[in-house]
């Protein structure tokens, strides 16, 4: 599985990638982006099957990035990984087309549970 990790914090991208690699999922390639705008550029040339994205980012935040993806007809699996969430955020994420929302810090187990049935 090819994954794109989007977060304005390099440290958090490292944490997400570390957790990804500790799961039993077959991760073949991981690329990174530092905000939504950067991620759109990467996705234009990267056949990622899964996007993991922070919510709050400068330049273009996660929800706007997801909406831009869907507006472009890009229906790749998308999940938020964020430090906080409430019912409103989860609904907004769901309405925009996200498949899941995980709170930081997340574990290999919670990630596998969220993603396992979505991608091979």
């Amino acid at each position: 599985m090819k994954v794109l990790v989007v977060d304005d914090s390099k440290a958090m991208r490292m944490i997400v990638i570390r957790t990804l690699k500790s799961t039993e999922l077959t991760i073949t390639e991981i690329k990174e982006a530092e905000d939504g705008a950067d991620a759109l550029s990467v996705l234009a040339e990267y056949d990622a099957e899964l996007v993991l994205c922070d919510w709050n980012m400068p330049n273009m935040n996660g929800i706007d990035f997801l909406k831009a993806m869907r507006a472009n007809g890009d229906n790749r699996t998308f999940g938020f990984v964020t430090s906080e969430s409430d019912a409103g955020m989860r609904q907004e994420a769901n309405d925009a087309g996200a498949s899941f929302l995980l709170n930081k810090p997340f574990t290999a187990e919670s990630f596998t549970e969220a993603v396992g049935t979505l991608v091979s």
Partner: protein
Amino acid sequence: MPSLPPYRDMPGIIPVRGMLSDLLGREVSVRDALHLDLDRDDLFSAILPDDEDNLSALFVCDLPFVCNTGGALSIVPAATVAESIEAGEPSELLAENYYEVANIMTGLLNGPDWTHIRITEVVPGVPDEARALADVAIGKTTVEVTIPGYGDGTMTMFAEP
């Protein structure tokens, strides 16, 4: 008579341990500790206002807490972390990493019944506005943590409803 918001439940050692262990990828030990003396010269404050920018909560921690949690977050060599502690200030990387640690720890003080708080900055010392909050805060708890491979650190958490 207007109703008051419910007081924010302060986290105990179990949720703090769980959060830090998951975040840092190692089993952290946490225990109750004496509150930090805010006159110390090796403290750092994470400023936590509500969505209207009213200061509502505060994390005050010592230099070892900043450096050891920051170091563990991205697996900085322990010797490098020790150098920062010895030098009396965190490196830029450790400071950035600690900001992320504190950012995630705000989750311990957020909940559906409480005013939402967020982190805006981490500053050295305890600024006057932060000191004013600390003096009257109803919610107050202090933890000492031990991070395997790095060392100990202490944090005092203050919160208003």
